[in-house]
């Protein structure tokens, strides 16, 4: 028996243990759940953007054979025990102590009751014995609507005489937030040049291939509601359901074991998470609802739509002295999604990777008759980075400086970390200039500048763009469900297997694999002997969910420290068993042995059996069992903003330096990516295979939002992209050839040194491609001010510059 420690699992590209079940078709998602006597729910959704509900008549639908029951908003309110949807992500309707942010709410229920406020809003539900009949019944529902003027554009919504979505509000502004630092006025007085721009991020969203689904099974005999939901916030959903369905004695068990992709869209509290349980309670039968893609495109949150009115005060040498940004987000209807938190986040991170000492951000979340606004991978930071990275290039153009040089001049330098940003967050670590240099080296700038000159001689437009984006990860938020800690329960069972119960959930990130690597190393058990049970609200400790790349930061730390606690206890037990002081014991190879005397050893299973079955052998005062509950509180965050709105709301700061070469075809506006380079730093890499996968996947979202994906509305408030026929997800053909490199600057605040890995990729492509397009079209003097960079947009820019040739 060798007691030598085996090579570490952490840091190696271990293939995932989740994969074989999925690849054999054995994995079960919410969609796949079948329960005896289960009924099927279909939801009637508003066809109008804005209208008063005069009546909802289900009688014809209920008369259809196979239809069991139905429900309207008016009926829900009459039940007496159903509250308005609880205001996720906030704890209460009064979450902020200093009156900044300001926020308004509305009594939305799981079905619309007074007005409809966006196309896709749930209005009524029907329940049938199968889904085909349920859909037939939808066609028989009669809804009488009095049309109201639609409010679609956020600027129009802010005008004093605008139609209001919520009559008891005095305007259409749901949230305001101000954050500032330094002396902005002085900076603007001191400036040589002031650069002003209006920059717009387009509305798009994450569209997991698994649409949302809810299964509810209420057992009246024990007042227990078993709920399956495709959610990133399973524990919170349990609480929110309890808040909303006020039945005394109701027990709620939420299952969220296998989720088919989230990307933020499943980080929200959705009406169906009340509607489907309610229907199960009313009928005492299991109930299943699976969202159609058309429902998804309007009934599941959108993201990103923001307009920035930004001004920068700069010195002639390119030093950015100060920035002011007025941010208007078009947030759709006021449902309990994470949208408000994301726009506050934007206000915090406009300074990006730059040492900007004077800053003022003003944020307004404006309600409109569009789908509610929420989280999407890159959560508010993508919009902030797009704006500041665009601004850097605009400033460079104004000053006739090289944008790369301008970046260098303003970067937070490596010796300034941990760096307290002007808005409060403490940037953990970074080597921005080094990463950018590496990216430029990999791009081969000289070669492409020569190619650009050749192209120009032929009348073709070739351009080079750069960016350096940060993607603050692992967040906390004032007054929200998101409290900046992570809990893990861990048990070594009598056979020496380790069961891990994390407080989060997995939407495809490979938590079971990562946890097995961490625990395998800490407890010296085999990868296969680590059993991860995740996504069960009664088996696992409470957790705020899976979002903000927090597993990599606080999740891994909680796992590591929980394993160390178990290891400590196992060592103490071994010490008694081996009659040797703990200090002289070696914990390796699945056993504990006396240093230098490998024959004197006890296996982990032997130790565990003593812990469970021979408590009288345990050291004085030690509890039986080998199980621990560990909570890790993030040390690099704060909970309360100061008087100027400053707060450290994210704890780790991965970043990506990107460089790209594009060619724009003048007659069609088509954009071709000729080369793309990313140099990504997410701290130490727990599993390089997974990190690369996360980064490439995130880049695909970035390319999507930069070039293809858009959720436009007509002026009547009708969504123009309501299926995958009109919403252009990138396919394999749209992914460019990429050169990807990683550098590793550890996170100094956690034992593993990891940072979030899965979101940075979404942030860069819009910025780097817009910058490259502007460089390509420089001969025409064009400024790029919006996303996405569709062929038509680029074509129209060129047409305008050429005087509508």
């Amino acid at each position, binding site marked *: 028996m060798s007691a030598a420690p085996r090579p570490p699992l952490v840091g190696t590209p271990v293939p995932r243990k989740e994969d074989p079940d999925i690849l054999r078709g054995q994995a079960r998602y919410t969609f796949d759940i079948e329960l005896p006597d289960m009924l099927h729910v279909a939801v009637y959704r508003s066809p109008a953007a804005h209208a008063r509900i005069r009546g909802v008549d289900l009688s014809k639908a209920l008369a259809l054979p196979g239809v069991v029951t139905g429900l309207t908003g008016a009926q829900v309110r009459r039940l007496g025990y159903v509250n308005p949807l609880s205001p996720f992500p906030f704890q209460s309707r009064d979450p902020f102590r200093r009156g900044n942010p300001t926020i308004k709410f509305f009594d939305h229920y799981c079905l619309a009751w007074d007005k409809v406020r966006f196309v896709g809003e749930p209005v009524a539900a029907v329940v049938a014995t199968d*889904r085909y009949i349920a859909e037939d019944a939808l066609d028989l529902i009669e809804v009488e609507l009095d049309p109201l003027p639609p409010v679609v554009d956020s600027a129009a919504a802010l005008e004093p005489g605008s139609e209001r979505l919520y009559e008891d509000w005095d305007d259409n502004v749901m949230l305001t937030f101000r954050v500032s630092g330094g002396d902005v006025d002085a900076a603007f007085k001191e400036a040589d040049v002031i650069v002003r721009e209006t920059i717009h991020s387009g509305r798009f969203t994450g569209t997991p291939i698994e649409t949302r689904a809810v299964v509810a099974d209420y057992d009246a005999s024990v007042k227990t509601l078993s709920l399956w939901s495709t959610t990133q916030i399973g524990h919170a959903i349990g609480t929110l359901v309890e808040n909303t369905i006020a039945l005394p004695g109701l027990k709620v068990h939420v299952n969220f074991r296998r989720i088919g992709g989230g990307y933020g869209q499943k980080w929200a509290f959705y009406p169906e998470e009340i509607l489907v349980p309610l229907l199960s309670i009313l009928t005492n039968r299991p109930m299943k609802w699976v969202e159609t893609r058309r429902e998804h495109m309007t009934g599941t949150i959108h993201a990103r739509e923001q307009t920035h009115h930004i001004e920068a005060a700069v010195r002639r040498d390119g030093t950015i002295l100060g920035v002011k940004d007025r941010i208007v987000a078009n947030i759709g209807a006021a449902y309990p999604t994470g949208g408000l938190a994301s726009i506050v986040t934007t206000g915090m991170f406009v300074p990006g990777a730059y040492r900007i000492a004077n800053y003022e951000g003003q944020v307004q979340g404006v309600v409109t008759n569009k789908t509610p606004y929420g989280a999407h991978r890159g959560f508010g930071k993508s919009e902030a980075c797009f704006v500041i990275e665009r601004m850097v290039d605009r400033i460079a153009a104004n000053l006739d400086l090289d944008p790369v040089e301008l970046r260098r001049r303003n970067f937070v330098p490596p010796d300034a970390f941990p760096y307290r940003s002007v808005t409060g967050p403490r940037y953990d670590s970074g080597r921005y200039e080094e990463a950018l240099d590496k990216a430029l080296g990999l791009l081969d700038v000289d070669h492409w500048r020569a190619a650009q000159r050749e192209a120009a001689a032929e009348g073709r437009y070739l351009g080079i763009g750069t960016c350096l984006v940060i993607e603050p990860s692992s967040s906390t938020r004032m007054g929200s469900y998101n409290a900046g800690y992570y809990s893990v329960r861990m048990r070594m069972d009598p056979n020496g297997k380790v069961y891990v119960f994390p407080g989060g959930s997995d939407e495809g990130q490979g938590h079971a694999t990562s946890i097995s690597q961490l625990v395998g190393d800490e407890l010296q058990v085999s990868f296969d002997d680590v059993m991860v049970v995740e996504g069960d609200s009664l088996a696992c400790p409470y957790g705020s969910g899976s979002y903000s790349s927090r597993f990599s930061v606080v999740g891994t730390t909680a796992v590591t420290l929980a394993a160390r606690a178990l290891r400590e206890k196992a060592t103490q037990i071994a010490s008694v068993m081996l009659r040797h002081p703990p200090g002289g014991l070696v914990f390796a190879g699945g056993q504990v042995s006396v240093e230098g005397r490998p024959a004197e050893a006890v296996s982990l299973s032997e130790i565990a059996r003593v812990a469970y079955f021979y408590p009288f052998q345990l050291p004085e005062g030690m509890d039986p069992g080998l199980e621990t509950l560990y909570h890790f509180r993030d040390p690099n965050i704060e909970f309360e903003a100061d008087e100027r709105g400053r707060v450290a709301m994210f704890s780790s700061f991965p970043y990506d330096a990107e460089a790209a070469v594009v060619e724009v075809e003048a*007659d069609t506006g088509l954009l071709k990516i000729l080369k793309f380079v990313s140099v990504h730093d997410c701290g130490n890499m727990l599993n390089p295979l997974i990190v690369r996968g996360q980064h490439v996947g995130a880049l695909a979202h970035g390319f999507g939002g930069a070039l293809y994906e858009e959720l436009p509305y007509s002026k009547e408030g009708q969504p123009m992209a309501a299926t995958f*026929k009109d919403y252009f997800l*990138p396919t394999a053909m749209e992914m460019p050839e990429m050169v990807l490199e990683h550098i590793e600057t550890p996170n100094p605040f956690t034992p593993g040194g990891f940072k979030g890995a899965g979101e940075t990729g979404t942030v860069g492509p819009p910025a780097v491609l817009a910058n490259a397009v502007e460089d390509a079209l420089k001969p025409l003097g064009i400024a790029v001010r919006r996303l996405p960079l*569709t062929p038509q947009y680029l074509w129209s820019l060129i047409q305008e510059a050429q005087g509508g040739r």
Partner: protein
Amino acid sequence: MYPAAFDYSVAESVDHAIDLLQRHEEGAKLLSGGQSLVPLMKLRLVQPTHVIDIGRLGGLSDVREDATAGVVRIGALATHAQVGASTVVREKLPLMTEAAGVIGDAQVRGWGTLGGALAEADPAGDWGPVMQALEGRVECTGPSGIRVVEAASFFVDAYTTVLADDEMITGLQVPVPSKGSAGAYLKMERRAGDFAVASVAVQLELDGAGNCTKAGVALGAAGLTPIKAVAAEEALRGQPVAQETVEAAAERVMEAANPLADVRGSSDYKRAVCGALFWKAVDMALRRHRGETVKGGHVR
């Protein structure tokens, strides 16, 4: 999303199918590969009371050259993949091979049929403009036999053709262009597998001096139906294919286009794309005429 309920029959023969069509009149729909019809039924944009499955009819998927008539005959049930892989088509009608490769995706191409796609008459369909540029003809079989309709007059409106309620497409006759002929089909897509933003089919016959003796030009996704750009064809015919000629023809192409605005672009933009694709297609056809190997099809 699921189709509304309907009755279903399997047609045993063309006559049987027509008999069923007659019995069920306008409520009936023919199902071949289903790659166009089933999606429309799922969205409940089409709600037939009766579906007649012709997908298993024998003898309707052959592709063969009829040298005497100077045409290639293609059965209505030939799939896009079959057309794409056909040696006869590649040798005689390379424009069709090019078009077959850009339709939908592998799954659609394997099951969707030429006849089904033409009968659906999606304004953004690929076969319409290709058939029009090649001056193909559609065999429409009804109770009184076969009538042959020029592709140029087959389409009436969006999703509407000259087919009567009791007629079905049984085949296509595509004239084989002369030896000195070359063409290109170009389809601009927002992303792979999507419908066209706009598409242009060009087939040019050139004499030894480089003069255009015959031109076929047609546009897809440029209006409610495929559009045969007759004025553009006339502008090219009898002329050397030089800058000014193509410029004049491109003007005619853009005049012929009357595209609908949607998420793929405004009407003006799509019209400009038609012009740009036409330029590229002519250039490509000329290069092919000179013996160059050029990749056509997708523009994205």
